[in-house]
């Protein structure tokens, strides 16, 4: 983790100043705007500075793709849980305490030899925060949002995932408040692994559908 992370509870002005001294650059326009707006919101009593820190801490240290990886590993070792997860993802992940913002309804879609699922939000950045945390930059970027619906196999191939021609590539465009997570295929050669070891194999990108899980 970066030094920014370790110090994120400190007053942010100091962090900004340190960052810029280190980089030798003046504050950019957007940095100045964010600072001005935050200070105005605080002075006007419209935001509680401690609430801002709590929001950041939640998504920087508590909620992230390890949540989803635990769900996937459980589904791999527990067929009854897997069934519940595919039937009603919201309820099944709530068993693990993963509920809340940007996950009002969660649909889990399973990758099999017949179907390769992948998830996008072409219009903005919808993403299952409760199980995967905040989305990475590439997921929110123009290249992914533009291409994945028209050329999913091209995107997958560039990322090292070759999908056979007789497998359906099924892209889920998250245009509503329903959130999608991919249940990747369990890799061969993992029969003896524990649930915890399996969770360690599962990557964020596999749960978006742009990678396979490797043993």
């Amino acid at each position, binding site marked *: 983790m970066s030094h920014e992370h370790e110090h994120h509870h400190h007053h942010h002005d100091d962090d900004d100043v340190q960052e810029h001294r280190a980089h030798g650059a003046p504050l950019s326009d*957007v*940095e100045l705007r964010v600072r001005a707006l935050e200070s105005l919101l605080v002075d006007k009593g419209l935001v*509680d500075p401690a609430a801002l820190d709590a929001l950041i801490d939640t998504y920087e240290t508590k909620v992230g793709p390890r949540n989803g990886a635990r769900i996937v590993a459980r589904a791999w070792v527990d067929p009854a849980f897997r069934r519940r997860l595919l039937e009603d993802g919201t309820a099944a992940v709530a068993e693990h305490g993963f509920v809340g913002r940007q996950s009002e309804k969660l649909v889990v879609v399973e990758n099999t030899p017949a179907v390769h699922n992948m998830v996008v939000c072409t219009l903005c950045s919808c993403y299952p925060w409760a199980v995967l945390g905040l989305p*990475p930059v*590439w997921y929110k970027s123009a290249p992914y949002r*533009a291409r994945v619906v028209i050329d999913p196999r091209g*995107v997958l191939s560039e990322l090292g995932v070759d999908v056979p021609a007789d497998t359906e590539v099924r892209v889920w465009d998250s245009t509503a408040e329903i959130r999608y997570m991919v249940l990747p295929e369990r890799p061969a050669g993992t029969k003896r692994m524990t649930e915890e070891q399996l969770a360690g194999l599962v990557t964020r990108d596999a749960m978006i559908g742009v990678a396979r899980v490797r043993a």
Partner: protein
Amino acid sequence: MNGAHDLGGMHGFGPVEIERDEPVFHREWERRAFAITLAAGFLGKWNIDMSRFAREQMPPAEYLATSYYEHWMFGLEKLLHEHGLVPRQQMERRLNDPAAPAAPVTGERVLAARDVEAALRTSRASKADEDVAPRYKVGDRVATVNINPLGHTRLPRYARGKRGVIALDHGVWVFPDTAGNGLGRKPQHCYSVRFTARELWGEGAAERDTVCIDLWDDHLVPA
């Protein structure tokens, strides 16, 4: 609106580049922009669809040339101005002079630190409790309407006037195409509608591939 945000199917943006060991935030200002946007949202003055619409109104050339949290800042400044919480003149004064005064606002529902965890857990912006009958059932053939509204819509350009099949019924949800434009919740069923890649993109697309898009009753007609 047919804005730069509606990216599905565009060419020329180059490869998808995945950063290894990517941090949650790259710069301190991104953390702050994220947090003030969420906290301001909890004031309850606008809904998630209005937030999206505010960002969509960034001029297209600017939208494509800026980063994700810059879109958020554009939207937040716009919403705060439009709701009279932070007028643009006040923002400009503060930018020019960090000591420029700003009187406290009273009577607003401000998110307190102790309430953050509960607020995030119970955040339930768009699911509707009303008992509204579905117009379609799983397996029904439908077509999307061809609309080009100036306001907010969740029907992407690449899926207008296309034929698909109802794959999942998600139940009753707020309709963003009205809620995002300040025209009420208009609760109705939202479905995952499955389109073949060939219906969307023509015969050059892979034969078996499909795209599933979440759409509402008002986006659909029988086919």
